[in-house]
């Protein structure tokens, strides 16, 4: 049995190999077997190796240009944060990575080979898994049944073909333990878990079924400060395990502590792609908030509503805050979860 705390890459790979052997024997159908093997054949490359590289990526729907000029990379053992406000093009970008949409400009390389993905299944075969906001879990079903839903391992033949319950429960517990979740009972309905824990079950499930790159669509958007912290911890955990993570968010305070690379989107355009060493949280926050735009908005409102209006005062304070960042630093101290830096 593999140890709960993941060691070096080699150990992890061999553990995966053993699992393939056992799972292959017990997999339900030939198709499922082939899929599982294809997915798990994707061994994790050494940390820092680019898995996905996009250059000048763009997408237009007819005459509408939804996305253009996006250049960034997703590396093994690193977190690439995609930041942008609503309508900035984040979802178009994910949909291209996830295989739901084909890109119309630029190049999209996986392991150095150019790809045009036609379906989410193509993306999964390459080891790119997406965890959407609704998580695709069934609240009233036990955690272990949810973990394997749709790809249940079975044993026995004919009418005696049945779920391999023992294997399913043990694997669920082990995989969650690797993510740092210690469940007393995997038999409890998944609805009884907290939002953050459910997110983590979805992540652990994607990892177990062969993901090398995890795309997380606003995983912290619906969560409170504490729960967000829990999810960020698991993102860091996935990174430690050597996965590439694409973390989509509009909150720089969530992105900065776990991110290694930051790609900012505004109005369908990339406005920058920075390594962590090239940008500070304040700069990131300021770019996100659109410092210049906020300033002009404050001026405009001051003209219409008068300088004394509370809205204008607040906006001005925000703009100054972005520049001076004293107030923001306090915020960060509150919001920053306990993430062990690598």
């Amino acid at each position, binding site marked *: 049995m593999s140890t709960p705390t993941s060691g070096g890459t080699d150990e992890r790979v061999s553990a995966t190999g053993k699992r393939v052997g056992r799972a292959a024997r017990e997999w339900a159908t030939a198709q499922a077997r082939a899929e599982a093997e294809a997915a798990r054949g994707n061994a994790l490359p050494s940390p820092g190796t680019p898995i996905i590289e996009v250059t000048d990526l763009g997408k237009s729907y007819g005459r509408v240009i939804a996305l253009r000029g996006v250049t960034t990379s997703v590396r093994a053992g690193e977190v690439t944060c995609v930041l942008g406000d609503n309508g900035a093009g984040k979802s178009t970008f994910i949909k291209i990575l996830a295989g739901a949409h084909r890109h119309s400009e630029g190049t999209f390389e996986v392991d150095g080979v150019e790809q045009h993905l036609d379906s989410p299944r193509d993306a999964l075969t390459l080891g790119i898994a997406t965890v959407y906001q609704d998580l695709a879990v069934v609240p009233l079903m036990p955690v272990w049944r949810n973990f394997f839903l749709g790809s249940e391992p079975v044993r026995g033949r004919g009418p005696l073909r049945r779920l391999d*319950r023992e294997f399913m429960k043990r694997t669920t517990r082990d995989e969650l333990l690797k993510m740092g979740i210690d469940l007393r009972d995997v038999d409890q309905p998944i609805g009884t878990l907290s939002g953050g824990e459910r997110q983590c079950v979805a992540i652990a499930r994607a990892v177990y079924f062969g993901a090398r790159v995890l795309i997380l669509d606003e995983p912290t958007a619906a969560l409170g400060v504490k729960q967000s912290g829990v999810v960020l911890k698991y993102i860091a955990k996935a990174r430690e395990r050597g996965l590439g993570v694409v973390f989509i968010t509009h909150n720089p305070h969530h992105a900065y502590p776990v991110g290694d690379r930051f790609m900012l989107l505004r109005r369908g355009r990339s406005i920058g792609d920075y390594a962590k060493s090239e940008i500070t949280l304040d700069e990131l926050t300021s770019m996100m908030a659109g410092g210049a735009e906020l300033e002009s908005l404050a001026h405009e409102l001051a003209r219409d509503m008068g300088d004394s209006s509370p809205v204008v005062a607040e906006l001005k304070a925000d703009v100054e805050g972005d520049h001076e960042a004293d107030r923001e630093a306090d915020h960060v101290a509150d919001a920053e979860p306990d993430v062990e830096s690598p």
Partner: protein
Amino acid sequence: MSTIAAADERVARTSPLGRLMKRPEIGALVAAVAIFVFFAVTTDVFATLSGSATWLRSASTIGIMAVAVAMLMIGGEFDLSAGAMTGFAGLVVGILTTEYGLNVWLAILVSLALALAVGFVNGLIVMRTGLPSFIVTLGTFFVLQGIDLAGTKALIGQVAIQGMRNVPFYDQPQKLFGSSMEIGRGTFYVSIVWWVAVTAVATWVLMRTRVGNWVFAVGGAQHSSRQVGVPVAKTKIGLFMGTAGCGWLVGMLLLFTTSTVQSNTGVGQEFVYIICAVVGGCLMTGGYGSAIGAALGALIYGMANQGIVYAGWDNNWLKAFLGVMLLTAVLLNEWVRKRAEEAR
């Protein structure tokens, strides 16, 4: 390794009783025991062999349908045509054999094929249109009821099958569906065996197979199930066909036990099936429930049905009793669901 062993240890701490208390059928089990004890004490016949043979027989045909309906409800759908289906299946065999001289086994197969086709159509309409199954199967219910009543009268000029015993080879399927066994003074019918078998198979499917996993999933969160690759339409259409298939089985049991079926057989029973399933722990909203619970629900129905007769009360009290059981069960189930879904 040590951490995992420790996790196992903590799970084992849950006592068997605590585990039982979490099961969906616990309410029905307690109620069944209470009702048995009540009638066993207050009446002389209830707990004798002949008494129990009577209430087991009445529970068995209801129970087979309740189990099928429970599976469908766990899958998130209703079937109001299930009651009329039992009469329909019996009438088809009766008319084809007595009126048209068809071989009895062939007639049984034709009846099965028709029943499965109706189930398939129910499922297909529900999945294709996205309409509530409540409405779709209400439609099928009335269609079947109309065929049962008017079709039977038009074809054989009567409202009940007659002369079934004179059909060649009648005794063969009669052994399978209508035979009985004397134990002491009680006449136990084979329908009880069918009831136990259907309950066992349904429980096996629900708890131990992939299909069972899918049934819970499509009833609990259809969209999510689809996202992770569960064949939603196949699962649900299969459930509708399963219910119709059980309707056929009960039709055969009724026909070959009494050698007759009336054109209104089964009408009005569809709600009894649903009540039994709900008393057994099924949620009206789907995704939760148990086949054993539904069987216990039917047992409660059968015991109350006969117990009231033995006690010498007015038969109509059964209706009031059913209503109280249903309301209590719904409230209890709702509480269980909230407890299961709430975040800690």
